[in-house]
């Protein structure tokens, strides 16, 4: 299909949108920013709380001035805000908080179906694999709790966690010790068949949905 994009149409539309990006065109510059700030506050509440409302206003303003989102839906808008802020924040506590909250959100809406495995634990020759929503992160322990975030607390050495969604849609951040990492390693490359009685770790990993059964 060929659509005739005349210069006049393009110029008028571009002028309106540019005015909005710059904060004007009647109330639209403000409406766009208010809607985005509300969205980001809903998606990343701890980041916004840590960053402060004044800084968020400046961030949102810069986002519309400097960035062109490739999609209009809220998921993509939030994701592109994170990518934009990664550049803006550099290496900082705020960036760590934002990335962690984005990981929680990404896991929550991941399109994969998580199958409950505990009903088949007694069977032999099961094809087991990592929970398809599982993400590994290394962050200070203070980040994953509900305590207020402080710069000092986040200076602690990082620990390893697995963030994943259970079959009943709970998003968990599970600390991973050496035995967990060793237990997960055989499945890093993909699902693997397991013969014989399952050891305690495998049973617990299946019961907790860290691992799941593939057919």
């Amino acid at each position, binding site marked *: *299909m060929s*659509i*005739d*994009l*005349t210069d*006049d*149409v*393009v110029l*008028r*539309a*571009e002028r*309106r*949108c*540019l005015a*909005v*990006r710059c904060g004007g*065109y*009647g*109330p*639209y510059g403000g*409406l*766009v920013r208010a*809607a*985005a700030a509300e*969205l980001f506050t809903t998606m990343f509440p701890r980041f916004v709380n840590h960053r402060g409302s004044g800084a968020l206003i400046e961030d949102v303003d810069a986002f*519309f001035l400097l*960035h*062109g*989102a*490739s*999609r*209009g*839906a*809220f*998921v993509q*808008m939030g994701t592109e805000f994170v990518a934009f802020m990664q550049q803006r924040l550099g290496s900082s506590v705020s960036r760590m908080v934002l990335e962690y909250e984005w990981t929680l959100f990404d896991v*929550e*809406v*991941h*399109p*994969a*179906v998580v199958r409950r495995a505990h009903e088949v634990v007694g069977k032999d020759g099961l094809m087991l694999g990592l929970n398809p*929503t599982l993400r590994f992160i290394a962050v200070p322990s203070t980040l994953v709790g509900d305590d207020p975030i402080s710069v000092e607390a986040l200076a602690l050495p990082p620990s390893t966690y697995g963030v994943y*969604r259970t079959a009943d*849609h709970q998003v968990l951040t599970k600390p991973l010790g050496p035995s967990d990492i060793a237990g997960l390693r055989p499945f890093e490359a993909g699902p693997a068949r397991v013969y014989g009685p399952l050891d305690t770790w495998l049973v617990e990993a299946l019961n907790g949905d860290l691992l799941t059964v593939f057919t």
Partner: protein
Amino acid sequence: MNVHDRGLGLRREFASALAWGPTRSDVDFLEVVPDNWMGLGGESAQVLEAIAARYPMVAHSLSLSIGDAQPLDWSYLGAVRSFLDRYGIETYSDHVSMSRDSRGYLYELIPVPRNEASLRLMVEKVKAVQDFLARPLALENVSYYVEETGQMGEAEFLSRLVEDSGCALLLDINNVHVNARNHGWNAREFLQALPEDAVSYYHMAGHLDLGPDAQMLDTHGTEVSAAVLQLGALAVRRFGRQPVVLERDNFVPSLDELCVELNAVHRAMTGSAGSPA
């Protein structure tokens, strides 16, 4: 439209109640915003699957940006088509607006320049969208807060868009009321200026009125006002009894309260007690 009379804009606040609670007899269908559900897994997907199995749905998107000056976003349209096919949705609508420039998307419905060139471009785009989706497209009149001089009147622009492209009009009664008040024209004359067979369904919503010296805002955050209900009844007399959707996006009350309001709105517009279904 293969749905009945009384529709409710689907919100996450009450999606689980619709998915898992008793099937309601006081709402006939739901209007879902694809942009808020497409590509999401987990609980969102499960809830929407359950709702789709219990209620007819129509789709009302936010990012078609049919009035912008960019080529159509075929990737977005492909995702919309997959969504419509997956849930068996035949009725699809978006807005007479733009939300994108050459740099990318904005998060708002910005009014379209109303001139001949813009109209011709929109007509071409509407036809292409309808061909691609293999469904009729309905477009909603939006509320707008800036009126540039020298533009075509909104009623003329919408009428010609409908007639030249073959799309339908999703008539948002509240937006007519808000625009009439903000820009000083007559809402009844506006309705009279639209083609009688243009409207495929109605939106009803609340607005924020901060007084005569401030612009009225289309907030979807209050109950539908008496003036909008009266205008809705007039619209039904002119365009016929079509499905009506109650939208509520801010200060969302309980599902029970919304359904009570939906039925009151429906009665006020049609004089009817509810769906024959």
